[in-house]
């Protein structure tokens, strides 16, 4: 009896020794992410490549549900931090930077020349003069339109806002919604506002507005809403009750002509049966010709939490993700745009259009209303936009409410 238990203990010790030596051979890199199925496959391929190049590192990817991740990250950053975590650029990462949950990775940027290769997204990764993560993809916003509907009413693709509004009258006469959107989840409405303001007042103004430096009751903001009011009657009624995918269905069915959306919607349009022949993309038309064209391109990023245990390997992984080759492959699978300037883009016409659009933007690249403005302001603002599209006569009350919120939130 005594002997067997001693033998068992010996076996256990040996087993434990073996286990620790196996761990010593391979360092574990824990990575928490929120990928949809297609991006997940792309990232698994990239991780396999990284592990092949670094056989001593074992990347353990833990994938979360996209919406659940937004809440989960707050818990795991403080309680059980991984070595790498997905998040977003701009003001969206500010709470984590300010509370010291993200690690400064300026050294990764400098050591790998990322300031040049990732230059287009550098500004959105910087807070207090330091870099807080590495971007791996972004995508353009703009107007997606149904070409057959344009042919049906004899409208031409507009370059200016006046032409766009004139088209809307033609569509209305044919019983087609000129602009469709689904604001049940609020954010699609913010895309319309962002572009109207970027075209009316420009990038600097937009950044100051989302940064809380310009009052919402200002005349410049009213000018933006005045442009919005011109198309308000032509926006899909009941948009407040439908999801953005339902609105995409309206465009596919030819019940709507234009949709201010991000490039991720192309997949939905095509699932609905549209092809490169029937689906068109145009930049948001010019409103004020004196304002340099600015665009919107939300950037997705990877960060190192402050509580990471394997910082060296995490930095190695960030440098790997930033390389031109990896970003090319990743974004080909994602159907989005790489940030590294030496990457190439696929043959897809919408990706090409987006690449062209963003790489020639003179004005500046905004993230998106809910990433540029602090979360609380974003919520109240987007509710205001939704309300304006339903009750345009309430504009004064809406702006007054937003202004009160601004004074409280940015103090």
């Amino acid at each position: 009896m005594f002997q067997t238990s001693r033998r068992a203990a010996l076996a256990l010790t040996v087993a434990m020794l073996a286990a620790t030596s196996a761990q010593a051979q391979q360092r574990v890199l824990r990575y928490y992410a929120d990928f949809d199925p297609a991006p997940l496959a792309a990232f698994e391929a990239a991780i396999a490549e990284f592990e092949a190049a670094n056989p001593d590192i074992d990347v353990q990817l833990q994938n979360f549900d996209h919406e659940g991740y937004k809440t989960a990250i707050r818990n795991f950053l403080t309680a059980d931090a991984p070595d790498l975590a997905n998040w977003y650029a701009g003001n969206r990462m500010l709470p984590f930077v300010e509370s010291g949950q993200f690690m400064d990775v300026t050294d990764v940027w400098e050591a790998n020349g990322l300031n040049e290769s990732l230059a287009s997204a550098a500004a959105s990764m910087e807070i207090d003069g330091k870099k807080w993560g590495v971007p791996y993809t972004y995508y353009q916003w703009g107007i997606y339109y149904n070409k057959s509907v344009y042919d049906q009413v004899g409208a031409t693709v507009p370059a200016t806002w006046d032409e766009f509004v004139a088209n809307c009258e033609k569509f209305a006469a044919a019983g087609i919604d000129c602009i469709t959107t689904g604001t049940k989840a609020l954010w699609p409405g913010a895309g319309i506002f962002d572009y109207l303001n970027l075209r009316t007042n420009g990038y600097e103004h937009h950044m100051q507005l989302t940064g809380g430096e310009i009052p919402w009751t200002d005349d410049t903001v009213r000018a933006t809403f005045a442009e919005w009011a011109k198309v308000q009657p032509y926006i899909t009624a009941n948009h407040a009750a439908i999801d953005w995918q339902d609105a995409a269905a309206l465009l596919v069915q030819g019940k709507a002509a234009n949709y201010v959306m991000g490039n991720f919607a192309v997949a939905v349009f095509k699932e609905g049966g549209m092809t490169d022949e029937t689906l068109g993309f145009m930049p948001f038309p010019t409103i004020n010709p004196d304002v340099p064209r600015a665009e919107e391109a939300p950037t997705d990023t990877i960060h190192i939490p402050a509580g990471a245990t394997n910082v060296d390997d995490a930095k190695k992984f960030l440098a790997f993700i930033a390389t031109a080759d990896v970003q090319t492959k990743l974004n080909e699978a994602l159907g989005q745009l790489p940030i590294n300037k030496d990457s190439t883009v696929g043959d897809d016409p919408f990706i090409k259009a987006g690449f062209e659009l963003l790489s020639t933007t003179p004005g500046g690249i905004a993230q998106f209303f809910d990433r540029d403005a602090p979360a609380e302001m974003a919520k109240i603002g987007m509710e205001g936009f939704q309300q304006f599209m339903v009750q345009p006569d309430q504009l004064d009350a809406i702006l007054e409410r937003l202004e009160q919120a601004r004074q409280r939130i940015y103090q």
Partner: protein
Amino acid sequence: MTRAALPNARAEAPPRSWWRANQQRLTPWLFLAPGLFMFGLYVIWPIADSFWLSFFDWDGLGEKRWIGWGNYQELRTDPAFYTSLKNNVIWLALYLLAVPAGLMIAIFLNQTVFGIRLYKSLFFFPFVISQVVVGLMFSWFYAPNFGLFYQLIEWITGRGVAVLADPDLVTYGIIAAGLWPQIAYVMILYLTGLNNVSPDQVEAARLDGARGWRMLWYVILPQLRPATFIAVVVTVIGALRSFDLVSIMTDGGPFGSSRVLSFYMFEQALSEYGFRMGYGAAIAVVLFLIMMVFISGFIWKMVRDEREGY
């Protein structure tokens, strides 16, 4: 055993240990201790903590900042708070319709015909499905363009009404969805109550010439008092904690016009754009106080009934 122990203890008189002297008084508390501990840990302490938290400005990550009554002062001028409060009142008032409606259905189903069990289960069915499913079904029912309700209205009036996109109708639309399972629940409470209605009294009343409404009002309803009490309690509490339907059907929209207090609290404290823990806690405290009014009322009634020996 006690009877044997007590005279013994008295006989041995002076040297009684403290434990022995107080055994009778302490034992109930000892038996209650595990329950009290759990109740304290999971109920009392979180309530106290919410009160405490409502005096801070805290995003859940950084430093807590003491702001005293700041959150409550903000609530006082917050239009979204008043919208939520107003909607809660509407919920409370309309949700109580489930009680008479459930009673009517219960009386209607309280007959012996072939297959009545099947009909009863069919009527009870809405309560069995999850609230999330109810919410989804009703949002499709109301959905613009393809929803059954929308098309029905369009067919009748020529113009469809998207209930969930209309700030004035949305709360009523959600309450209608909530009433569907709630009526079934109340119905089942009354059906069991009707089983216990004494046939002798009904017989006697019938001999005295009571029929229809008078029979219901003076003979049946008084016997259903316990069922009515439970039905009102669960309905009031159900109305005040309404959250899932709002979250599923509209997410509080359009522009916040279907919010209720519990949803607003969640939005401020835990949702994607929220993380104002202190403000959320302040809303929770207000909701708690409103609930306390009703709960104390119910408890007071229960205690009174017990004393009177119902």
